[in-house]
C-alpha cells in the first residue's frame, strides 16, 4: 500500500519488515477498519453473511458470547497469518491454503473450548466446527487480508468479528429474555413456578414466556427488525432500484 500523504511529516520511520512509511497504529483509517463493520458495513445486517450460525446458536446469551469470541480469535489470527504469507501463496491454490489455516485455528479453538468450557462447547456442538465455512471469515481473507499488511488485517478481523458478535449478542439477548425469561441463565423476570401462585416477579402477574422466540425463525425476525431500525436511521444503506 502507498503511504498516507498526511503522515509524511514523520522523519526517518523505523522500518521493521514492511517497506512503507509508518502510520500511527490507530490512525483514522485504521480506526475505521474497526468501527465500520459495527454499523455501516456490518457483516450480518448489511452484507447478510453468517446468518446460519446467527439463527442456530442465539437461543441463549452465553453460547452467543462464546461463539463471538471464538470467531474473533479465528478471524484475527487467520487474517494475520494469511496477510503475512500473502506474497508467498500461489494464486491458484489460495483458497485451499486459507482453508487449511482457518481449519487449523478452528480445531485449536474447539479443543480449548472442550477443555475449559465443556458445557458451552457441547451446546455449540457442530457450529464451532462450522466457523470454517462462515462466509465472513473466508470473505475477509479474500477481500482484505490478501491485499493488506498484518496490522491492518488484524484490525479488520477484529472489527468484522465484533460486528458479527454484536448482532449475535443483541439477538441472543432478546431471544433469551423473551423466550425463557433469563439472561446468562439468571431468572431476571422472576421465577416461574408450576402455578401462578408459586411464581414470583412478572410471572406472578400472569406473564408467560414467548415460545416463538425459542424457534429459529425468531432469530430471523429479530435480525430483520435490527435491519429495519438500522436502515431507517441510516438512509444511505437503502438500495436504489
Amino acid at each position, binding site marked *: 500500500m502507498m503511504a498516507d500523504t498526511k503522515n509524511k511529516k514523520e522523519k526517518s520511520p523505523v522500518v521493521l519488515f514492511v517497506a512503507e512509511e509508518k502510520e500511527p497504529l490507530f490512525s483514522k483509517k485504521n480506526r475505521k477498519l474497526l468501527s465500520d463493520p459495527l454499523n455501516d458495513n456490518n457483516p450480518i445486517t448489511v452484507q447478510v453473511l453468517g446468518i446460519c450460525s446467527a439463527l442456530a446458536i442465539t437461543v441463549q446469551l452465553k453460547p452467543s458470547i462464546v461463539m463471538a469470541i471464538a470467531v474473533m480469535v479465528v478471524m484475527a489470527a487467520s487474517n494475520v497469518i494469511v496477510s503475512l504469507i500473502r506474497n508467498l501463496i500461489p494464486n491458484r491454490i489460495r483458497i485451499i491454503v486459507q482453508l487449511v489455516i482457518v481449519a487449523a485455528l478452528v480445531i485449536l479453538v474447539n479443543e480449548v473450548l472442550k477443555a475449559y468450557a465443556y458445557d458451552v462447547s457441547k451446546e455449540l456442538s457442530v457450529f464451532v466446527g462450522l466457523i470454517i465455512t462462515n462466509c465472513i471469515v473466508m470473505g475477509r481473507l479474500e477481500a482484505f487480508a490478501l491485499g493488506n499488511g498484518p496490522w491492518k488485517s488484524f484490525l479488520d478481523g477484529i472489527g468484522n468479528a465484533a460486528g458479527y458478535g454484536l448482532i449475535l449478542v443483541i439477538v441472543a439477548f432478546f431471544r433469551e429474555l423473551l423466550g425463557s425469561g433469563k439472561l446468562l441463565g439468571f431468572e431476571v423476570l422472576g421465577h416461574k413456578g408450576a402455578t401462578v401462585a408459586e411464581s414470583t416477579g412478572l410471572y406472578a402477574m*400472569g*406473564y*408467560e414466556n*414467548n*415460545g*416463538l*422466540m425459542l*424457534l429459529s425463525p425468531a432469530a430471523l*425476525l429479530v435480525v*430483520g*427488525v435490527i435491519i*429495519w431500525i438500522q436502515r431507517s436511521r441510516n438512509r444511505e444503506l437503502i438500495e436504489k432500484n
Partner: protein
Amino acid sequence: MSALRNKLDQLKKPFNKGEKWEKFAPAFNAFDTFLYVPNHTTKKGAHIRDAVDLKRTMITVVIALLPALFYGIYNAGFQHYSQLGEAFTFWDAFAHGAWKILPMVAVSYIVGLGIEFVFAIYRGHEVNEGYLVTGLLIPMIMPVDIPLWMVAVSVAFAVLIGKEAFGGTGMNILNPALTARAFAFFAYPTFMSGNKVWVSDATHIDAISGETILGTLAAGKEVTYDAWTMFSGAIPGSIGETSTLWIVIGAAILILTGIGSWRIMAGGLIGGAFMGFLFNLWSANDLMAFPWYQQLLVGGFAFGLVFMATDPVSAAQTQKGKWIYGILIGIFCIMIRVFNPAYPEGVMLAILLMNVFAPTIDHYVIQSSVKRRKKRLSTATVKSA
C-alpha cells in the same frame, strides 16, 4: 349538515399547513373522513375515482363480520354455561360472552390504531383504514380465554412486523390478522390449543372437555356433534369461526356488494371438498375418514376462506390467479389438518402459505396471457402478410 362541516373546519384549523399542530394532521383527518368523504382531487394522470373508497370497503367487511361476531358472543356464553352445567337464558349467555369478548375487541383496536396513528404521524401520511377490519378479525380468531395482554402483544406484532415493516396498508405480504394469530399460536401454544381455552373461565375446572372437533379427532376420540350443530355453530372454537351459517350470511354480503372475491371462496370450497373426498377414499385414520362435507364445516375453514383468504392486499389479483389461489388454499388446509394433527388450524397456515405465493401465481398468469397474445399477434400478422 353544513353546520357540522363548519364546526369541523373550525376545529381543523390548528392542524392545517403551517399551524402549530400540523404534525398531528393525520390523526385529525382520520376522524374527519369518517364523517365526510375527503375533498381532495387527483392532480395529474388518467384516473377513475369510485365513490366506494377504502373506508367504505372496510366498513362493508365489518358489517359482514357482525353476524358471526354476535353469534360468537352468544356461543361463548353458551359454551360456558352448558359445559359447567348451569341453567341459563339467552341473555345470560349473551351477557357473559359480551363481558369476555368486548374487552378483547377494545384492546385490539386501541393497540392497533395506536400504532397506526404513531406511524402515520411519524411518516407524515394519512391513517389508513385497513386496521378497521384487522382489528375486529383478530379477536374473532382467538380462543375466548386468552389473556388480554396476549391479544395486545399479538396485535402489536401483526401491525409492526406484518404491516408497517413492509410499508403500511396495502404493502403487506401476509394477512395481518392471521399474522397475529400465527404469532400467538407459536408464542403461547398452551393458550391457543388444548381442551380448556375454548370455554371461558374453564382453566381451573377439570371436568370440562371443551376440545374443538378437530382436536377431538386428532386425539383419536369420538366426535359427539352432528352435522347440523357443526353448521349452526354451537361447538367450541375460536370466537368467530364456529358458526358456518352466520359466516355464509357474511359471505353473501361480501359477494353481493362485490367486495369479497367469489372466485377465491368457490375455489377454496372446491379444493377443500376435493381433498377431503380423496382422504375419505383413503380412510387410514379418524381424520382421513372424517366426512368431507363436515371438514368444510368445522374449524376455521369457512371463516378463513370468507374473510381472510379474500383480503384484497395479500390475495392473488388476477381472475385466473384467484381460482388457483383459492383451490390451493382448500387443498393445503385439509392436507395440513390431516397430515399434521399438531396444527389443527390448517386453514391459518394454508392461507399464510398461499399469501406468500400469491405474487408468483399472478406473475405466471400474466406471463401466460402475454405469451398467448403474442402468439395470436404473430399468427395474425402472418395471415395478413
